[in-house]
């Protein structure tokens, strides 16, 4: 029940925004965020953006994944 879906903000009008959720446009509330801009990613839960998704942090996590995968490859070849 705490599922939240990453969605990109397409339009913003005050506390309301339109996001793309799995190819479908949907209006959500952004009243829980201080500021959010068109083009940014948010996590949507029960019709509300509950937090922004930081692309910078996401990239750091993904590069850690790549390091782990590479380290295991190196171990396996020895």
């Amino acid at each position: 029940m705490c599922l939240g879906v990453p969605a990109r903000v397409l339009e913003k009008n005050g506390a309301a925004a339109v996001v793309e959720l799995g190819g479908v446009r949907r209006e959500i509330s952004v009243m829980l965020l201080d500021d959010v801009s068109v083009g940014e990613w948010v996590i949507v839960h029960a019709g509300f953006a509950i937090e922004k998704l930081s692309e910078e942090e996401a990239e750091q996590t993904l590069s850690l994944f790549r390091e782990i995968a590479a380290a295991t490859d190196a171990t396996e070849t020895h």
Partner: protein
Amino acid sequence: MRLRHIDEYRDPATAKALVARIRKDAGDAPVRLMEVCGTHTVAIARTGIRPLLSGAVAMVSGPGCPVCVTPDGYIDAAIALGREKGALLASFGDMLRVPGKSSSLEKEKGRGLDVRVVYSPLDAVALAVASPEREVVFLGVGFETTAPAIGGAIRTAAARGVANFSVLSSVRTIPEAMGILASDPEVRIEGFLCPAHVSAIIGADAYRPVAERHRIPCVVAGFEPIDILLGISMLLRQKREGVARVENEYSRVATATGNRKAQDLIREVFVPCDTGWRGIGVIPGSGLRIAPAYAAFDAEGKFGVPVIFSPEKTACRCGDVLKGKILPHECPLFGKTCVPEEPYGPCMVSSEGTCAAYFKYGSG
């Protein structure tokens, strides 16, 4: 279609590398880790992580399924609001089949009770605006993830003067429940995989008392398979180093301090209270009831229909499952008189319930 911010966290090669790392880091006896949140439970069951790690890690499911821990007295109160007060009930879909003392919302709907499934608490406010002649009661069930959405709907209704809207609140908070489990000698948890989206609201630092007081490692992890595997790996590394701290794998969404604006909204609309968890009992300070300033939107007070918590005496062992004391198949009812089509206990009702997940995907 490739889904951004989802598919990157499902890469099989990274999963394989992490499973190898977890197996290498694990000791002789399986390490007992608890995934606190029901959304993690489903992800772990669906992706087959439990059998992948068997022998190295024993994943135990926790109490983080809001539907499962909502007392039967809550369902009884909701039905009474519909039957006796003529209210239109708006609910998340998961709640409909939860058994009350004698009936469920789904059964009552079949007998003519007006129950509508909504996606958002704001949809319930819209229903109230569209039906000014009816009283609309939203069944506000959830944890910290959902609390700001419920609070946001209450504040919206207050600002717009929607007087025929109210909420039957059943909001619970996770760290208090983790504290109870951490201090229960029968539970024996060696690490907590902490919920992704509860943490987005309350912040990873909220688990510091659990990590520091009970010396149990805590890692906030996302809900995708690689997130979960990395979270488990981080827990094992803490255990190996002999430390117990809070780490955050889900830093792309959850921060150390959480969403301050959402926390402010929760503090504005709700006040903490002691509350009963189905199968577990009353946990001090683990509930959120509607604050006096918003009493007009509190269905319990508005209609004089209180939610009564009384521990149940049944053969159903959901309580022990929710505390990680037993696995679902150790309950005498599991798969026999309690199946998803005809659930006996709440853990079999919700799609996020531990018993439902085990029944659907196997116990691993």
